[in-house]
């Protein structure tokens, strides 16, 4: 089981901030494929990976990264702090 979090317009498109998934995906990219296939709202949120960022266990990572041992995955647009 893995916690998946969504922020900003990713959260808005998918319609929820967080969910718990039982997934066999071994990489972030594979998880994204699995989510895209679920429903149109996921497909819309993950339409353009270049406009998305991913964090694994609260550290910035990338879409090629393995999911082994990861408890929390977060998807969000590029950050705009400051």
């Amino acid at each position: 089981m893995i916690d998946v979090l969504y922020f900003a317009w990713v959260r808005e498109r998918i319609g929820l901030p967080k969910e718990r998934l039982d997934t066999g995906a071994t990489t972030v990219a594979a998880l994204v494929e699995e989510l895209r296939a679920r429903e149109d709202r996921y497909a819309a949120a993950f339409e353009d990976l270049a406009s998305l960022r991913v964090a694994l266990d609260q550290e910035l990572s990338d879409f090629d990264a393995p999911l082994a041992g990861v408890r929390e995955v977060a998807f969000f647009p590029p950050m705009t702090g400051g």
Partner: protein
Amino acid sequence: MAVRVQSESFDPGAELERFGTGPDVGAVVTFTGVVRDDSGKLSRMEIEHYPGMTERALAAIEAEATARWQLTGSLIIHRYGALAPGERIMMVATAARHRAEAFAAAEFLMDYLKSRAPFWKKEIGADGTSWVAAKDADEAALTRW
């Protein structure tokens, strides 16, 4: 060395007043970010963040600045939630012996805060709502460090 992530407003004057004292301090730099209303139609800005990761990211950025420059003090305050035009969003402060270090560290903190701290801004105005897009220039600014 301190990081604060909060919804409440803060008093930049009081923060500066109590920041960066001691015999080694010769230079104190502060940066304060304010909600701008370019169009005159902004009713508020909503700042979303990633609790947990935000604090980690800010602490890491501050640790990196402290490793690169001889700082005698540093402070990062960043708000989240709904802010009106003119309200202060965030503040960084750096203290060092000399001005070059204090300026460089403050600019470094700001550049990393912009693109590496998990905050997202949404503008709610008379013309509707929109997420503030990240700027290429902000990402490019990181290459100078």
